[in-house]
C-alpha cells in the first residue's frame, strides 16, 4: 500500500507553543532556584524549552491530527491521529472531484452516485499533488459518469 502523509507544521506549532512556554517557565524557575541568573548558560538552558515543547506537541499531534492516506489499486483508508476515519473500495464510487475547502485547499470528493452520497479525502493535509492524485483515482474508480439532460421543449412558430 502506498502512503500519503505530511507533517502539518502549522498544526504542530500550535500544539507545541504552549508546551514551549510552559517548559521555558519551568526551566527558568529551576535556574532561579539554583541561582543561575544570567550569562550564556541561562540562554542555552532556556533554549532547551523548544525541543521539549516540540516533543510534547508532536506526541499530541501524532495522536490527534496527523493524517495518513493509505491506498492501493483496490482500496483506501484514511487515518487521522490514531483512528481510522474512513475506509473503502475505489470501485464502490462512481465520480470523483476536487473540492476547495474554506481555506481554498483542494480535497478529493468521491461520489457513490452522481449528485448522491459522497466521501471526502483530506489530500490537502498530505503531500499528494491534487490534480495527479485525482487523475489516478479517476482511472481506478468504476463508473458510468454520463449525466442525462432533458431536451428543451421548443415552441413551434
Amino acid at each position, binding site marked *: 500500500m502506498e502512503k500519503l502523509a505530511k507533517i502539518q507544521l502549522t498544526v504542530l506549532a500550535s500544539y507545541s507553543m504552549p508546551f514551549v512556554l510552559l517548559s521555558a517557565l519551568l526551566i527558568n524557575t529551576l535556574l532561579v532556584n539554583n541561582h543561575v541568573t544570567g550569562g550564556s548558560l541561562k540562554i542555552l538552558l532556556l533554549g532547551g524549552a523548544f525541543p521539549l515543547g516540540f516533543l510534547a506537541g508532536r506526541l499530541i499531534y501524532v495522536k490527534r491530527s496527523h493524517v495518513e492516506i493509505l491506498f492501493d489499486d483496490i482500496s483506501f483508508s484514511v487515518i487521522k491521529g490514531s483512528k481510522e476515519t474512513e475506509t473503502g473500495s475505489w470501485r464502490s464510487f462512481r*465520480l*470523483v*472531484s*476536487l*473540492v*476547495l475547502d*474554506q481555506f*481554498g485547499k*483542494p480535497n478529493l*470528493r468521491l461520489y457513490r452516485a452522481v449528485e448522491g452520497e459522497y466521501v471526502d479525502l483530506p489530500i490537502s493535509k498530505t503531500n499528494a*499533488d*491534487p*490534480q495527479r492524485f*485525482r*487523475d489516478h483515482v*479517476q482511472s481506478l474508480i468504476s463508473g458510468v*459518469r*454520463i*449525466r*442525462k*439532460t*432533458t*431536451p*428543451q421543449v421548443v415552441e413551434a412558430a
Partner: protein
Amino acid sequence: MRLVRGLCPPDPRISNLLTRYVLELASVDKAIVLILSRAFEMQSRSLSEQISPVDAFELNLLRGGSRLIADLTEFFRDYKVDDTTFAIYAKGNTRNKGLFLSRFFAWTVLPNYPVSLFCINEGKTLLSTESLRKRIETVTRVTDADELQWAWLVVLSDRALSPQIVSLVSRYDRKELGLAAASTSSKQIVLSNNQVGRSIGKQLKLRKALEPNKHWRN
C-alpha cells in the same frame, strides 16, 4: 630573509594536517556539487514535464483565479453530459468566501447565484460551427436544469480557429453564457460579446494557460 624562511620546507606534521584538511574540503566540495547537481536535475525534470493547457487552466482556477467574479469550489474532469465530454466542469457561486471583512462584504452585498464553468478540449479535431452550437446547446440545457444564473464555456483547440468560429463566438451575445474559443497552437483567443464572456480573458487569465511552462509550475 623572510622570503628564504618562507620557502623552507614546512614541518611534516603541519603538511600532513594541511593535506588532510584539503582532502576533507575536497570531499565536502564534492558533496555540495553532488547535491547541487541533483537539485538542478530535479528542477530541470520538473520544468521539462509538460503541463497541458487544460491542467494549467484548472490549476489557475484551483488557486482562486475566478475569485473576483465567482467562487468555483468543485472541479470535475472528463465530465460527460449526454454525448459531450467536458475536460473541466467546475461548480460554484457568486458569493465569495473570505476572512472577516471580505466575507462580511460578500454576505451583505453580493448575491448568491449558482454558476458553472465548462471547458472542452477539442484536441486535433476540427472545431466547426455546428459542433460549437451543439456544445452551447448542451451547456444551455445544464444551465437550465441546474437553474444556474450564468455559465462560462471555454473551448480549446489544437488547430487554428476558423473565421466562421471567430465570427460565431465574437457575435454571441446571450448574457447567460460567456463563450471563449482558444487555439493552443496559434494562441488566438476569441471571446463572446457579453460581460461574462469578456471576464474569461480578464479574470480567468486564459492566455496564461495557453503558455503553460512560462507561468505555471507544478
